[in-house]
């Protein structure tokens, strides 16, 4: 299935802000993490400390993704 990834900050330098990718049906956030690290090993560290959100709400590693969903990858805050 296809999902869209939205990235921010340093992650954008590895993965464009708005990227469509194809992953297995019923994949979880945790599987998405693994898939991304395999494709782009350089982001392993950032991903480890990033949170994920769907529809403006944080989601945990067990959350199951659905076709066409937009997944926001939120690296550690550095505002202020």
């Amino acid at each position, binding site marked *: 299935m296809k999902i869209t990834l*939205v990235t*921010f*900050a*340093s992650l954008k*330098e590895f993965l464009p802000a708005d990227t469509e990718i194809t992953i297995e049906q019923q994949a979880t956030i945790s599987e998405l993490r693994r898939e991304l690290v395999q494709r782009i090993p350089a982001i392993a560290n950032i991903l480890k*400390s990033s*949170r994920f*959100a769907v529809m*403006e709400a944080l989601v945990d590693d067990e959350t199951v993704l659905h076709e066409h969903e937009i997944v*926001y990858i*939120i*690296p*550690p*805050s*550095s*505002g*202020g």
Partner: protein
Amino acid sequence: MIVTEPIDLATLLQQAHRAEAGAVVLFSGEVRNNHKNKSVNYLEYEAYIPMAETAMEAIVQQAIQQWQLQYAAAVHRIGKIKVSESAVAVITAHAHRNEAYEANQYIIERIKSEVPIWKCEHYTDGTHEWGKNERSL
């Protein structure tokens, strides 16, 4: 609140006076001209705006409850911000000063560690670097 225009500290202050408040504390986080011994040209902030606004508002409301503040507000600016300009402002008003200071520090600490806003330092040598938060999530 997330804004793209310069933060107007004077107006923020004006809105914070309360007849029951004996103390108003304003914090302004401003862009320094140096970072890790490198000369800073400007900063650029990015936010996941809807979640950032919700998170900031929740932090402010939490502080109002916890300290029984008369007033509190927080504003973060995003986009390019020049040296000496304010990137973030927090204002608190309380009957007594210790609470106004304490709540103010609480709000800025939580904004910095939790709210999805990111800073990119642009140096005068043309390089740039995304900010890293010392604390992990």
